[in-house]
């Protein structure tokens, strides 16, 4: 089921084109909205929230146009912005309660839920501290709490792990996964960090230079192709094996002293066995490696001359 749908969505800020005819579908579960800085992710979030109006194209959120039904749509959305957005002199519990009330919850319900949701994100007694006295990790948790306190249909999280150390990041990603799976809210996780999306998302929409470079279920995108990594015994045997594999029309390369073979189908295994045997190569270790989202991303970028030279920040590769 599609919860957010865009068709040829275009949005410019003066001469800068932020979204250039983006067409996409976001369904149930956790969806990663992926792309380098400047790809148009934040603009798209703004359009989903009805904060801006698209120059052209159509966008529907929960079946409604956020540009015309903004208040109704926003009542069913939760939003955690990329930037700091909490008043530093207000207690975490107070600001979460206030935002719950503003999203339509009765006062008593809002008070109880603010406390519960802050406990849920790991803030116990800290919830009674002013936000300005909190660490970056705690502030990120408060932002997440205010986005989910009113039980929205969709939670929009814009770079929720910004400024977090690896342990905090792990915790945050676990929380996000729980929101999407256990609490029944659909999540749009906006990130430029591929491994984050890979870890928690069920589906992904990859934006690049305002366009949708690729989209689909994670299993379809990242799992359609995989590679066989073989650690060979003996010098110079790798090139001999590659030559024999190429004769059998099997793609292979050497990477960090290992032989990497692209697995197209089951027959590839037979070709690898035969090539190894005819080259007289011994095998120390052999294992299958799934193609990562990162590879999909760069594969797309490599095909686009305007973006082929750059990589997203934070990429581990």
């Amino acid at each position, binding site marked *: 089921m599609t919860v957010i749908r865009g068709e040829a969505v275009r949005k410019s800020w003066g001469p800068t084109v932020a979204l250039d005819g983006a067409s996409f579908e976001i369904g149930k579960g956790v969806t990663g909205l992926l792309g380098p800085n400047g790809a148009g992710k934040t603009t798209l979030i703004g359009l989903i929230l009805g904060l801006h109006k698209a120059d052209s194209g159509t966008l529907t959120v929960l079946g409604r146009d956020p540009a015309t039904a903004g208040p109704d749509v926003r009542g069913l959305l939760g939003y955690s*912005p990329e930037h700091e957005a909490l008043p530093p002199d207000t207690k975490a519990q107070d600001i979460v309660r206030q935002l719950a009330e*503003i999203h339509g919850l009765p006062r008593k319900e809002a008070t109880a839920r603010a406390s*519960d949701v802050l406990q849920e994100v790991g803030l116990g007694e800290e919830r009674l501290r002013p936000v300005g006295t909190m660490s970056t990790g705690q502030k990120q948790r408060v932002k997440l709490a205010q986005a989910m306190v009113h039980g929205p249909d969709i939670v929009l999280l814009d770079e929720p792990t910004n400024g977090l150390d690896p342990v905090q990041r792990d915790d945050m990603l676990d929380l996000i996964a729980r929101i999407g799976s256990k609490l029944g809210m659909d999540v749009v996780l906006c990130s430029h960090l591929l491994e984050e999306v890979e870890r928690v998302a069920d589906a992904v929409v990859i934006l690049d230079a305002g366009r949708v470079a690729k989209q689909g279920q994670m299993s379809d995108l990242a799992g359609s192709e995989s590679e066989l990594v073989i650690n060979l015994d003996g010098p110079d045997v790798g090139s001999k094996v590659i030559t024999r594999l190429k004769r059998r029309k099997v793609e292979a390369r050497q990477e960090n002293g290992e032989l990497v073979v692209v697995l197209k189908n089951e027959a590839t295994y037979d070709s690898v066995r035969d090539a190894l045997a005819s080259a007289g190569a011994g095998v120390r270790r052999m294992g299958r490696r799934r193609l990562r989202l990162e590879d999909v991303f760069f594969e797309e970028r490599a095909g686009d001359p305007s973006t082929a030279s750059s990589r997203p920040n934070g990429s581990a590769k």
Partner: protein
Amino acid sequence: MTSPVAGTGGGTGARILDRRYQRYTGPRKGQAHAIRRLTLHAFQRFLGLRRPGKYKIVPFTIGILCYLPTIAFIGIAALIPVNNGTALVSYSQLFGIISGLVGLFIVTTGPGGLIADRNSKSLSLYLASPLDRNTYLLAHFAALMGTLALVTVGPPLLYLLGSMFQGIGPAGVGAAAATAGKIVLAGGAIAAYYTALTMAVASVSNRAAQAGVLLFLALSIPDALVGAALLNSDAPDALLLLAPGTLPDELVRRIFGPVAGALQAPIEFHLATALVVVGTAGWALGALALVWYRYHRLDISR
């Protein structure tokens, strides 16, 4: 949110309750509720409520100061009944006497709310709710107007009650109700007027202290120039319309009627009341138009 997940059985009736957060699925109130809640939260914020103690010092100190002249007049009337059964000062004069303190309350308390929401970027959270820019501004207008009404309506109402208690107030329930109505009208008009001007200044400044100074200058410099022009030349009284700090005082005088004696206004303006009303409303609407323009140009998603 608190749901039983398992029963222990037996006759005790004890149950294990799941205290973890569960998604809210109950009824949701709409945009009007959101406006009311933000109005209340902003009102509390202006007064420093639900914030650390230091934020309460200025609004409460100056707010209490605004009531002191009224309390003093009531006290004097109680101790020294010199005025043969009439109040010491008229309401118009009382407004004039406390106007300086009210001004101080406005410049110190008023601009902070809008600016804080922009600087902390919590504006983006409010606008990601059922509120939009217009309703957000409406809620802030109502909150600030309510806050200012504490010092523009409160003291004269207290004076009315004190006067009546001592038998020097309006005679009869009807007269008292009419006076109370005039107080609410005058105090409400002043609060609304200064709310509009304060929000305009707050919309063009990023620091509360700077906005307070700007507001003070905006209210005092044109008035000083107009006052000098009117006192020292044959300039037309219509110049009053260019004095944003004096116009509301004149409006109050028109509501309560002219005053004679030592505390009468230094200048009697020969200007139609309708023109005073239109002039005051013009400044307020112009200020609100500026706020609207600034907020509709504001990029709040990045």
